[in-house]
């Protein structure tokens, strides 16, 4: 139908004077954008298939390619934008739900960018991390409310459930084997192990090759219970119950049968080619008391040797929910903001459901303190941590540690083209096609992840030193170290910070 024709958003611009028809672009593009016209001996491209992932641009040896936003336009309309019109055409044509991936790209406020960090001047010396110890080690887990001593008066130093020890307060967030490739998983696992932190299996089980990274692995138990068995639970350092995800709060997940191939089918413990559908709720958790039972079932099953994390999406009443979780026996609460990534989500949900992680974190931390139960749980947040300054701000607002997903994938080569759902990731990350997966070399991938976290750690230490703080725990919840910029009274009061200049 002509109505359904949509002019491509991006155009492939080829400088023919530079092109040497080496056909690298053609071989690299899983979307078949490029082709050679043999008679003319000229490369042409079909931009309607282009997802703007930059694979061809990055590999073109003569820098002959670039991708530009098209200047083709509908008649300007501030309300009916080109995107809004196109979505209607698509749905009128197909009757389907719009699908998207990665985090919410809409221009909502980014509160990280509206907070500024303090530094010492005169009354208090700043500390040079190159000369003095600067500590970023963090323990996650329930803290005792009362110390105990043995009959000789000696402190009893054993915790009810072990604590997770992180050398830096940064972990890799849940991304399942299936939604991302074997090589991506291997890169994350090896990086976590080298960095002395943790990565998360997501809901999809754990490939047998990766059991050896167990002490740096968090395994996930989600509503589909895919890949969950005794060995899986025992393989890890901690167990995460996934209730929700920031990119799609309130709904489940769907890994199409086409991705359930070979090892993925084995790891998920479902037949090859069947769709892996995770229900929206856990069907054994319809209320908070049910959550408590699942927490303790998992603890019983692992003899109280593994801390339990409960992960929720940041939604309107997140503070009350977190308070319930803090009393459920869970050791750690993970909160995922509405900008958190995903391998596939309904577009409307991704773009309209949930709240910013900055506000969710501030209100959860405050609520737990108001109720005197902040020590019951550690708080880990994710949902678009883009750099080390975001982390410093998150910790000052009250987080114990952060999860990074999108930034980790960017380190592996993701160009945020937001087409994961197609399964044709040219960078070898969100795909199961062997010829694409091979493009991600885990040897290089893990080093890039280590580099990223190490660089951020250096920056965190510099900022801490500037504030005269030499240990990360003294930054946690230290909201006087933050000031708002361009925020209204209500936003400042939710964030619990003063405005710059105050």
């Amino acid at each position: 139908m002509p109505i359904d024709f949509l002019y491509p958003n991006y155009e492939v611009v080829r400088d023919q004077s530079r092109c040497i028809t080496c056909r690298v672009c053609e071989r690299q593009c899983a979307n078949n954008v490029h082709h050679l016209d043999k008679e003319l001996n000229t490369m042409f491209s079909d931009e309607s298939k282009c997802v703007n992932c930059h694979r061809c641009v990055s590999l073109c040896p003569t820098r002959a390619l670039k991708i530009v936003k098209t200047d083709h336009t509908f008649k300007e309309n501030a309300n009916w934008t080109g995107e809004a019109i196109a979505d209607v055409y698509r749905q009128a044509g197909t009757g389907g739900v719009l699908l998207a991936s990665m985090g919410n790209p809409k221009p909502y406020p980014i509160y990280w960018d509206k907070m500024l960090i303090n530094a010492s001047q005169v009354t208090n010396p700043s500390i040079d991390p190159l000369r003095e110890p600067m500590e970023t080690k963090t323990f996650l887990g329930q803290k005792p409310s009362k110390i105990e001593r043995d009959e000789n008066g000696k402190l009893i130093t054993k915790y009810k459930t072990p604590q997770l020890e992180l050398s830096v307060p940064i972990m890799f967030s849940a991304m399942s084997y299936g939604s991302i490739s074997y090589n991506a998983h291997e890169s994350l696992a090896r990086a976590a192990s080298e960095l002395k932190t943790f990565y998360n299996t997501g809901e999809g089980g754990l490939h047998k090759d990766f059991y050896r990274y167990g002490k740096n692995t968090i395994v996930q138990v989600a509503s589909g219970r895919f890949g969950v068995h005794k060995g899986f639970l025992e393989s890890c350092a901690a167990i995460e119950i996934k209730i929700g995800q920031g990119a799609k709060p309130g709904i489940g997940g769907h890994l199409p049968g086409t991705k359930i191939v070979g090892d993925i089918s084995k790891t998920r413990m479902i037949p090859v080619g069947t769709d892996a559908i995770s229900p929206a709720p856990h069907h054994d958790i319809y209320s908070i008391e049910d959550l408590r039972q699942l927490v303790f079932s998992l603890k019983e099953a692992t003899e109280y040797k593994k801390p339990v994390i409960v992960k929720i999406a940041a939604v309107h009443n997140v503070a009350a929910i977190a308070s319930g979780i803090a009393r459920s026996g869970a050791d750690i609460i993970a909160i995922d903001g509405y900008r958190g990534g995903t391998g596939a989500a309904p577009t409307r949900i991704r773009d309209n459901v949930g709240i910013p992680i900055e506000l969710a974190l501030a209100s959860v931390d405050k609520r737990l303190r108001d109720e005197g139960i902040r020590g019951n749980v550690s708080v880990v947040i994710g949902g678009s941590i883009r750099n080390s300054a975001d982390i410093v701000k998150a910790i000052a607002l009250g987080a114990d540690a952060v999860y990074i997903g999108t930034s980790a994938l960017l380190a592996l080569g993701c160009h945020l083209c937001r087409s994961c759902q197609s399964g044709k990731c040219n960078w070898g990350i969100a795909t199961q096609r062997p010829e694409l997966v091979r493009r991600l070399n885990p040897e290089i991938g893990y080093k890039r992840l280590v580099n990223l976290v190490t660089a951020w750690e250096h920056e965190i230490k510099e900022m801490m030193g500037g504030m005269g703080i030499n240990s990360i725990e003294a930054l946690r919840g230290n909201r006087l170290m933050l000031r708002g910029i361009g925020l209204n009274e209500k936003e400042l009061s939710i964030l619990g910070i003063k405005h710059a200049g105050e």
Partner: protein
Amino acid sequence: MRLEGFEHIPSGCAISGIFSKAGNRFNGEDIIKSIAVMHDRSNGLGGGFAAYGIYPQYKDFYAFHIFYDSVTAKEETENYINSMYEVVSMEKIPTRKVKAITDEPIIWRYFVKPMAVIEAEKQLDEDEFVVRSVMYVNSEIDGAYIFSSGKNMGVFKAVGFPEDVGVYYKLEDYEAYCWTAHGRYPTNTPGWWGGAHPFAMLDNSVVHNGEISSYDANRRYIEMFGYKCSLLTDTEAITYIIDYLVRKQGLTHEEAAQVIAAPFWETIDSKEPEEREKLTYLRNSFASLLVTGPFSILLGFTGGLMALNDRLKLRSMVIGEKQDKVYIASEEDSIRIIEPNLERVYSPKGGEAVIVRLNEGVEV
């Protein structure tokens, strides 16, 4: 300008302390002389003293020292105290006119004991009962401020240079086995008497020099346990942290010091396994009570005195010893002025708590 309690106010300072391990009591002249040497470390916006063993005749009673802004506040507070406590004695705290000390509030003291019936009804032990009353008066009664609430000890403080404050309160008339003193150099204060140091809760008194960078992390954590940091000063937060760790959690002073100025992980990891586990447990369990940034504090408590520096030793602190006396001060000169012939002089390391106690068998 807003009063203390509305802004977090950093300040630099001078501190000094004298302790007799034999429990010999001596008047306030020496401590005034000592703190006066460090005149330039204060700016006249606050000075004060804590003295232990000064009320032997009332040693089983809590001594409340209270500032009142008005007669109404005094009446309201006294009605409150009378409804909760047996009051065995009350009087205006004796002072003398000093030119440099102005804008005096009404200053009274009361020797009290919680009424047994009310205490039982509230199911609180005596100390907790007193803490809650102090918090109540200080936050709820406008113009009243209880600045000292321990047994057989007292705090004396004002806006002014410490040597003037000592003369003002006639400290030569009190005899204590332990004195601490403070001269304040706040960078931003309206000059409120309650904001001067020492800061005290029950028999714990803290004088502090420094500006802690962990303030809001500490404050927001300690407030979970019923403390209200109404002054928003570092010293107040440190006092509550110590009260929480020692009185409520039952840690020793040594253990509390290992929380507040916890050793670096590198140091902890180099210890023998048992010690390592203990230090890790303390640091991790009370992680939010780690205090960073420069500080030197003197904590007075019944029968003892603890000196503690931050982990990097970003503030000076010197200790001198002569016979039964221990002298601790920001600067050595303020020790030498009262005891030129010291047997030992040393500077404790960063994070190393020095705790002196009365010799065994000494009663005060």
